[in-house]
């Protein structure tokens, strides 16, 4: 069994996803248990594989026994291991969170939800563990199709958003496919490690430059890098709460991971990569400012968080563009940090909407009295977004700034400072409403529907994930050095003393 851990990571949810439509006819509880078990297996396998990668070096697993470059290879290096643990952890956590949301829906709909959700998880995990660029495309499509359907399940407005995302997302995937098509034509290989060996002599050709551009743009769309972010605000803000949570927490991160993996591990130091990273860095800087300013302009809490994601995802690219050790530390820590922080924020927003139906920021008035713990988690996450110590957001910003100062990139320093302040503005507005403003909602005749949650401010299945993430933000912050020196350090593209 342990010899096949890398395969189990995506396969466990994939198999259960296929069984789910049948199981759903028997019992929804059974579906839920098997789904949770599948994700638990993924999480345990990821953790085991990560441990193996750290102790004994990169784990090359040949799928079905076919050796690369002919067969598909799964590669668990520390980088893939970290991201796999992160993704499977969030998939599990959000699935726990989804229970109260699903309660009361017809059994068939629940069955669809679990199927799609597990497919999404399998797709994301597959993208992380694979060592094959075409296999990555396949998993990208699996996760994307599942995501379109999950978003569309959020109602009529969501259908439009999902359709729009589908069009843009398909274009993105096609660009990526075209890019790897060029690589295949040039080298005859699709295996990442193989490509890394075959590409350097060809690095100066136009075809490689084109491939870099197509792949970066394709994945840039999927991770909503400004100005390719158009699909994101609608998709995030109209999706059902658990779906928005998982999309915001890990889905875009996996595309960011893929950019990092391909640019830094496959193309390595080819000349076009530097150009692509430079351009992406400036797009990221613009995106940070654009996302932050647009977030201030939003009245809907979910849309505010969505625009905030546009800004925060760009931090990752900023770090990659800096390209020095501190910048990469910052980028990778930001992947963890933003997953926890934005995941927490979307789950809180989802909980508020689930519990009271409120999405507008001005209607949050005095909500802190009714949902004190939920709002406390929100405060911690907001501090992390702004980058205040001792939260993890501070440390990812610290490394990014350190990298920017080291590289003498003063414009990026200024962008990071400006972004922190703009972020403070829009989160502070929410907190001021939630904690200080008197309730004026009733005046407009909109009484709040309040659901009973058995004496809890929120159903425990929702509250516990929210609190875990809130505590996680603090814990990751306090132990950020251990995470950097024990894990992230080994996820750099080159070995350092």
């Amino acid at each position, binding site marked *: 069994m342990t010899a096949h851990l890398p395969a189990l990571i995506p396969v466990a949810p994939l198999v259960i996803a296929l069984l789910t439509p049948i199981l759903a006819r028997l019992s929804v509880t059974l579906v839920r248990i098997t789904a949770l078990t599948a994700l638990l297996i993924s999480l345990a396998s990821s953790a085991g594989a990560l441990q193996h990668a750290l102790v004994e070096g990169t784990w090359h697993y040949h799928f079905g026994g076919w050796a690369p470059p002919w067969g598909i290879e799964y590669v668990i290096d520390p980088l893939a291991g970290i991201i796999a643990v992160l993704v499977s952890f969030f998939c599990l956590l959000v699935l726990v969170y989804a229970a109260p949301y699903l309660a009361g829906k017809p059994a068939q709909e629940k069955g669809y939800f679990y199927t799609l959700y597990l497919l999404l998880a399998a797709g994301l995990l597959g993208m992380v563990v694979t060592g094959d660029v075409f296999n990555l495309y396949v998993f990208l499509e699996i996760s994307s199709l599942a995501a379109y359907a999950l978003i569309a399940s959020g109602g009529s407005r969501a259908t439009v958003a999902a359709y729009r995302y589908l069009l843009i997302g398909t274009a993105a995937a096609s660009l990526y496919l075209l890019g790897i098509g060029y690589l295949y034509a040039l080298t005859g290989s699709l295996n990442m490690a193989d490509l890394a060996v075959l590409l350097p002599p060809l690095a100066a050709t136009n075809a490689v430059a084109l491939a870099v551009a197509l792949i970066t743009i394709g994945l840039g769309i999927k991770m909503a890098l400004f100005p390719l972010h158009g699909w994101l605000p609608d998709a995030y803000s109209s999706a059902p709460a658990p779906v928005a949570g998982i999309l915001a927490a890990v889905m875009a991160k996996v595309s960011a991971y893929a950019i990092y993996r391909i640019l830094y591990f496959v193309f390595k130091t080819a000349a076009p990569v530097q150009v692509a990273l430079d351009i992406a860095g400036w797009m990221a800087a613009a995106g940070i400012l654009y996302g932050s300013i647009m977030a201030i302009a939003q009245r809907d809490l979910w849309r505010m968080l969505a625009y905030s994601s546009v800004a925060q995802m760009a931090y990752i690219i900023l770090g990659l563009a800096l390209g020095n050790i501190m910048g990469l530390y910052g980028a990778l820590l930001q992947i963890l940090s933003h997953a926890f922080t934005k995941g927490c924020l979307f789950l809180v927003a989802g909980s508020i909407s689930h519990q009271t139906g409120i999405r507008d920021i001005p209607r949050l008035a005095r909500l802190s009295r009714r949902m004190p713990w939920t709002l406390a988690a929100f405060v911690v996450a907001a501090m992390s977004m702004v980058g*205040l*110590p001792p939260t993890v957001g501070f440390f990812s910003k*610290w490394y990014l*700034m350190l990298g920017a100062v080291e590289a003498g990139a003063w414009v990026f320093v200024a962008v990071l*400072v400006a972004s922190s302040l703009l972020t403070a503005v829009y989160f502070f507005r929410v907190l*001021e409403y939630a904690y200080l403003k008197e309730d004026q909602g009733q005046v407009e005749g909109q009484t709040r529907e309040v659901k009973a949650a058995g004496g809890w401010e929120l159903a425990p299945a929702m509250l516990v994930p929210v609190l875990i993430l809130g505590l996680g933000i603090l814990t990751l912050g306090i132990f*950020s050095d*251990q995470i950097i*020196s024990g894990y992230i350090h080994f996820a750099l593209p080159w070995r350092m003393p």
Partner: protein
Amino acid sequence: MNADFFLVNRPLWAVLISLLAAGLILFNDRRPNLREGITVLAAVGKFAIIFSMLPQVLAGQVIETAPLTLAPGITLHLQADTFGLLFALLSSFLWILTSIYNFGYMRALKYGHETGYYASFAVCLSATIGIAFAANLLTFFLFYEILTIATYPLVIHSRTEEAIYGGRKYLAYTLTAGQFLLVAVIWSQVLAPGAEFQPGGFLAGKGSVLALQILFFLFVLGLGVKAAIMPLHDWLPTAMVAPTPVSALLHAVAVVKAGAFGFLRLSGYVFGPQLVREIGAGQVLAVVAGITIIVASLRALGEDNLKRRLAYSTIGQLSYVVLGAALATPMALLGGMFHIVAHAFMKITLFFCAGAIYVTTHKQNISEMKGIGRQMPATLAAFTLGAIAIVGTPFMVGFISKWNLGLGALQANEGIYIAVLIVSALLTTGYFFPIVFNAYFGSNKAGTPIREASPALLYPLLITGVIALVLGVFPNFGWDFYQLALAAVKSIFTAGMGMAAGG
């Protein structure tokens, strides 16, 4: 776990004890007596821990905690050196008195929802001690930001529109400043990895003059807001909407002094006195401080609200400390360091009095306080002591720091600042004398039965008032503050000499 472990890590315990108290306070929401008991216990415990380090530190030791790595090459590193201990002793002692005062004040005014208030107060004190004991810039910055955030709930405590506006302004100023400070800290980290404070500074020769000038400017922006140098001062008078104990301890001692303390650290331990003067940054900062001293005193003259007048007075007085850091001569640094202590005792007395008057008579404006000295003689006696001290009368605590600052200005060949000090003293007399005169001799149509403030309010302010007097005659009374400042200055300049000789 041996005894050594406890002794060596005393700076850490001093930080943690009030953090622990904050947690306990939050869990005792429904038990006000227990909640307030915890506050006092934590305050006394904190002071005891810090006080116990005094003999060793005076003997020249630096008590360092085991470092906890925060980021590669940087540790959460606390150390009790002479200057840090001075600030820590001061804040922790005044926290005891403020806690007692708090009970009298908050219970009399019946705000409700005080649990968060006491918890935030405790967190603020943790952060202040963290700032005092920080051994490197990152640790300093961490606690500096925590202090910013923890103070916010205290400013908006009354939840009125005015308070919310004050809180917003406070955050806008301090968070922006925090970002500049962060850039400055990171830049220092890049120039000199580790960025540990060193007597005599660690940045000499680490960058071009222009780079160091810009870096210094970033530090000034970052620290200047809390130290309320003009034109970054505007949040402070607005923040006076906070309950008076907050204005007294945080807006006269802990928060604003964290900024002033930062300036002295910057000048003595980051850049070093020599470098500050060489790159011309000290000269410019001194001008800014001088202007702040005069303009703030002029503004104070025009304020009728007592707390706002005190706030402008604080702005002016803080710049004495900044001036000391900017002149960066031995006597100037000594004066600046001792002024942190002197101003703390004087201004906390004055704020305590303002609060006691408000609780007892509900008067906030100076124009309404005619004859109040006959009604509250003990309170006004303390107020008078504080006012006389702040003017800089000999044999009062304010005189010692100003005398040293004046000598420091001469050492720097900038005698003009003696004129600034004298003009400021006159203006200070100008804005305090009418209050005292009216309080005793102003006519008050209503009868003036003696009605003093309640004991919880009265005793703390009498104690601080008397200490302001005693420290003027015996500056080493009780806590060896003067000795600590002297030792700190010596360490800065002997290190500088050593470097000069070595280089």
